[in-house]
């Protein structure tokens, strides 16, 4: 519901918010962190008592939320996960939206690899793909910022800009009435992120790494978004049908307490096939 208001380009009111109240607020927050004491919340609650309308949809995590955990678990070969060819724009809007998501996910991989040239290339590619779905204007500033911050090797800032690019693209698409297509951008990013996650965990299996695949609610959310698509044409798109099948195939695997190495490899195969379909010229 209101979440839509909070994504994408903020209303102009934010721009006229004066600096002084911000500084005061920051100081107040610092004070609050130091001094505030919360009332003791209940140790358990009954989540089933929440009516559906009182439960907000899950926010799709950005790939770096998972990648930084992998960094803590070992020393993944991020450069080895980068693709030389980011994919071909076929002109099909569903394909472009999914492809854009995979390319932004590659941006997060390039950040982990600390490869500024690749990040810059991805920043340009984001612009080209955004043009293909009429949202170029929304990401021009982000694309420049991604390039500038990659040049400065400010990796945390690049992560934020990539996250921002994702939100700006989705926000602009929602403004154009393409909110269903916008969902495909998130899905593309999730699929590519999962492909890389399973590749890294598959190469050096650990139960802690495999546990990162435990994302049942996210999977349900994506499936619901496709099932509830109002546009029948979009829902019937070959790639969208493939992605829906992927979610169905992965569901019995993701969400288990222990995810075996075989299942990690199975998810890797499924996501790799889907990424190949998204990036191929045959759509």
């Amino acid at each position, binding site marked *: 519901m209101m979440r839509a208001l909070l994504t994408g380009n903020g209303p102009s009111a934010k721009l006229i918010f004066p600096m002084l109240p911000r500084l005061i607020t920051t100081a107040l927050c610092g004070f609050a962190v130091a001094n505030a004491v919360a009332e003791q919340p209940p140790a358990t609650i009954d989540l089933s008592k929440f009516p559906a309308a009182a439960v907000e949809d899950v*926010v799709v995590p950005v790939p770096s939320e998972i990648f930084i955990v992998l960094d803590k678990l070992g020393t993944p070969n991020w450069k080895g996960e980068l693709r030389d060819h980011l994919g071909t724009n076929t002109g099909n809007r569903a394909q472009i939206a999914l492809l854009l998501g995979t390319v932004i996910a590659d941006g997060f991989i390039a950040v982990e690899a600390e490869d500024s040239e690749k990040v810059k290339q991805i920043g340009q590619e984001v612009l080209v793909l955004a043009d293909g779905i009429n949202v170029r204007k929304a990401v021009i500033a982000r694309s420049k910022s991604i390039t500038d911050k990659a040049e400065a090797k400010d990796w945390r800032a690049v992560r934020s800009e990539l996250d921002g690019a994702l939100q700006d693209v989705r926000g602009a698409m929602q403004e154009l009435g393409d909110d269903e297509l916008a969902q495909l951008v998130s899905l593309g990013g999730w699929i590519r992120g999962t492909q890389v996650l399973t590749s890294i965990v598959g190469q050096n299996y650990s139960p802690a790494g495999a546990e990162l695949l435990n994302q*049942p609610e996210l999977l349900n959310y994506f499936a619901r978004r496709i099932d509830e698509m109002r546009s029948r044409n979009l829902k019937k798109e070959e790639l969208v049908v493939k992605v829906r099948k992927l979610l169905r195939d992965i569901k019995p695997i993701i969400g288990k307490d222990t995810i075996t190495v075989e299942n990690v490899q199975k998810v890797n195969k499924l996501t790799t096939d889907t990424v190949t379909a998204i990036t191929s010229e045959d759509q």
Partner: protein
Amino acid sequence: MNRRFLSLSPVRVLVALAVLCLTPLYATVDDALSFAHECAVPYVKQGFTIREDAWGGDLGVKDQKAVTAQLFKGNEYWFCMATDVKGAVINVHIYDSQGRLAESEAWQKGRFAAAKVVPRATGTYYAIVTIEKSPQERTHWALVYGYR
């Protein structure tokens, strides 16, 4: 100067009035988001990356909302909530998918509240947001989270 932008056709006047009427609603939601981001500033300084995506809306006094989040074991998270309504008291607490309190720290100070969680397992968590007190019937709120 381009005169097109200065002419006052009836349609333009109506559009301008509509924009003026809608502005307070959007500005309020947006201000709550600004406050939530400000609330997160101390954690940015501690190395947390704040997500651009956010939740928000309006609730009545004592109303609650459950916000779903996919969290990963190995990360730390801060959830920061705020409202723009002076005199309102809000809070946020984090529960796991079994309904067990999962936060390791939480604080609440009037229109700001925050909770930290270091997930013991990867999975679905719920941030329960509550408007405890407010001088207004409906209170706009916003929630952001950061990870490191």
